[in-house]
């Protein structure tokens, strides 16, 4: 059986000790992808909010036109 190693109960971890200065565990690739995704998400949210505000304005203009009796066909 490749890839698995059997350990006796006495060899297994019985506690977790914090390590300072150990090997890097944060993947640079993951951070890079996360940064780009979050930046585009912020940008798209901003554009979406602008679009929603524009839609609200359009609705209010239509209401005003109806109220003034000048609504275009």
């Amino acid at each position, binding site marked *: 059986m490749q890839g698995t190693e059997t350990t006796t109960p006495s060899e297994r971890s019985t506690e977790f000790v914090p390590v300072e200065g150990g090997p890097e565990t*944060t993947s*640079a*690739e993951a*951070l*890079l992808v*996360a*940064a*780009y995704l*979050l*930046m585009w998400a*912020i*940008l798209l949210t*901003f*554009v979406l909010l*602008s679009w929603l*505000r*524009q839609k609200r*304005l359009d609705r*209010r*203009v239509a209401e*005003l036109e109806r*109220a*003034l009796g000048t609504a275009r066909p």
Partner: protein
Amino acid sequence: MRDRAFEVLLAVTAALFFYLIAHVFLATPPAQLAAGGIAQKILYFHAPAGYAMYLSGVACGIASALYLFRPSDRRDAWARAGAECAVAFGLMMLVSGPLWGKKAWGVYWTWDPRLTTTLLSVLVYVAIVVLRAFSGGGDAERRFAAALGVLGTVNLPIIHYSVRLWGGNHPTVITGQGGGLKHPAMVQSLVLGFVAMTLLAAILLILRSRVALASTRLVRLEEAAAARGALDT
């Protein structure tokens, strides 16, 4: 004609961003491990986003100062649009920077002078946006927001020179003396990033100022219509 020019600007910006992404990921080499390795590629959007925040902040500051000098709806709309865009670009910078910092410095955040002054500036613009969103569009609110807009802009040069004045962890690679990017593709990616983000800032500023101006005009029309009894509210 103006709309046609705007559509062309939109198309050019979109094409430039596609090219920039391909150039950053396919043609630009990663930097040394001490600078974050492949995570250093965040720079090509992070620094331009900061620059776009400066541009938006300057637009907000100039429009705010002009509004305080002589109020007009157009100036108010540009001040508001500038603050909103500064928040968006500032958030892009503040989100991407810590992810790069985690790899390069080992921590997401440190109270480095540049990071602290940037956070302060973004918070000033957030305050303007919140103020305008929840306090109505009265003259006093507009003037107070304009004063905040001027204050936010005064802080921008402090952010820029904080690295040289007070030191800290933030790199000083991009300087007036030519910069420290040691590969032509790195320089090309950064220049492309600055151009693309400048065009994007221009597009968003124009769009948001148009929406803000239309909103103000609509409120005036609604008030006039209500005064004439044409509207229920």
